[in-house]
């Protein structure tokens, strides 16, 4: 546990001492601010039966940013250490591999949360500037916050695994990109007509991030996505552990 906190702090420090975290945060906030403004404008022009929060997180534009965000913040985790050889010093220190993985993983989840946090300032900021009530309820925001936390927990685990698989950061980034995107589009298989029949369609909708977000952005907290994302993240981190331990036996 002691080693975990030391590694966790070190990881956070190196994130925020490098320009990468700040650039990603600035661009991501800019992108979403632009999207937020666009969404308000769209809702002004066209009447929508859904809330602002629902519409914002339903839009593909919002998730586009995520496809790039996760590869960027996870690619260096293990790939960089392997490339530089520092993994040798790290894993020959008296620390457990699990501690190293969890420290890097949770530090990245924290970084992710810091990056998406400005999103939640948009809503009060909008009200403060315009003096108008935006079309949503407080419960929707809490549901969204939970949704984004779960999405982060899951996708950072994907990125952690991808980064442990290779010494090349670019390959790690591309792997994460493809898997984050694939997972997102699982929810669209039925809409695209790629699968038919209610069994498949319904089955896949359990994996669909966008479906989860639909209920959460309406303030409906369902325990199924909570269990789904957390347990899958645990599975992915367990695989990461096996990948890192297997290096001992491989060439």
């Amino acid at each position, binding site marked *: 546990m*002691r*080693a975990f906190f*030391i*590694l966790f702090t*070190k990881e956070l420090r*190196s994130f925020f*001492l*490098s320009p990468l975290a700040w650039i990603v945060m600035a661009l991501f906030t800019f992108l979403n601010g632009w999207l937020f403004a666009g969404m308000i404008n769209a809702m002004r022009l066209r009447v929508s039966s859904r809330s602002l929060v629902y519409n914002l997180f339903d839009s593909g534009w919002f998730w586009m940013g995520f496809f790039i965000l996760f590869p960027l913040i996870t690619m260096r985790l293990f790939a960089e250490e392997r490339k*530089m*050889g*520092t*993994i*040798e*010093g*790290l*894993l*020959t*220190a*008296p*620390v*457990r591999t699990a501690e190293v993985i969890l420290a890097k993983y949770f530090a990245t989840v924290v970084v992710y949360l810091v990056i998406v946090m400005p999103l939640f300032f948009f809503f009060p900021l909008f009200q403060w500037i315009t003096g108008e009530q935006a079309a949503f309820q407080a419960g929707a925001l809490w549901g969204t916050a939970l949704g984004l936390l779960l999405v982060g927990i899951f996708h950072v685990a994907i990125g952690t695994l991808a980064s442990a698989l290779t010494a090349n950061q670019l390959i790690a980034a591309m792997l994460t990109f493809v898997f984050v995107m694939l997972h997102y589009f699982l929810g669209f298989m039925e809409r695209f007509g790629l699968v038919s029949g209610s069994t498949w369609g319904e089955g896949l909708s359990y994996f669909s991030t966008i479906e989860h977000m639909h209920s959460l952005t309406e303030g409906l907290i369902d325990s199924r996505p909570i269990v789904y994302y957390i347990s899958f993240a645990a599975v992915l981190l367990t695989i990461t552990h096996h990948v890192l331990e297997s*290096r*001992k*036996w491989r*060439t």
Partner: protein
Amino acid sequence: MIQVNHLTKRYAGRTAVDSISFDVEKGEIVGFLGPNGAGKSTTLRILTCFLSASEGTASVAGYDIYEDSIKVRQHVGYMPENVPLYPDMRVKEYLQFRGRIKGLRYRDSLRAVNEAMDICSLSEVDHKIIATLSKGYKQRVGLADALVNKPDLLILDEPTNGLDPNQIRQSRELIKRLGERHTILISTHILSEVEMTCGRVVIIDQGRIRACDTPQNLIRRLRRPGEIMLEMQGDGDKAAEKIGKLEGVKSVKKTETGNRWVTLSIHTDPNIDAREDIFGLVTEAGWKIRELASRAASLEDAFVDIVQRPSGAKIKEEADA
């Protein structure tokens, strides 16, 4: 301090380390010597629990490398080949981080880092970013990292690789000094380094141990005639004939004839020093001597001799025979 028992490491289709066994006693400085690709780094990585062996066992500081991997790592300071460091950290910050993950408490780590920086003469660069340091400094940061938590055993993988001659000399002095407090296993292919610092040498080639002894013994065992150079003034042919009859002299060759000076190259039995006899003979005949020197066999000769032997033959067995 280290017991290695029939350790074997196979990579896909290749045996990197082939059933090696050796011991290192507490307080020793042992050189782990071999050509590139001989299996040195692989062995050291197994001993530091970075890799697993395919077969065999080893214990370090009294702990089994499989059963008590964490305990082993607590007692070993390891400096990997090419000294990987985090380039974006500052020297002091890095050493403190390393000290902390090696189990030092915050307050102890401050003192330990200062001590390690003193030993490795890093105090003047303590706030520099590692990426901006020269190779020699980086090497010393790696060394300070290895010894920051005062481990019983230091395992250094090619610690002088890539340094200039002056830095090599400094780091040799440093390693010698460290040997007073730590047991050291040091891998290298620089022979002079081993000859000067190590009490014992393990020579490994193609994954097998080819010799294991003190540098002096290895040289003594070397089956190679001693060579004496004689530069004299007088009748070269007559001298060569006379010297050839001396005890222990195997052959005499006239190598160079200047206007009045003759150079003779004399091969003798390695256990016999024929220089006194030669001196007596030459002065008795009334000739003049300008140089009389024996070219001693070095560890380099021993190393080349051992490594170039057909594999499987051990120098020890030959010496016993």
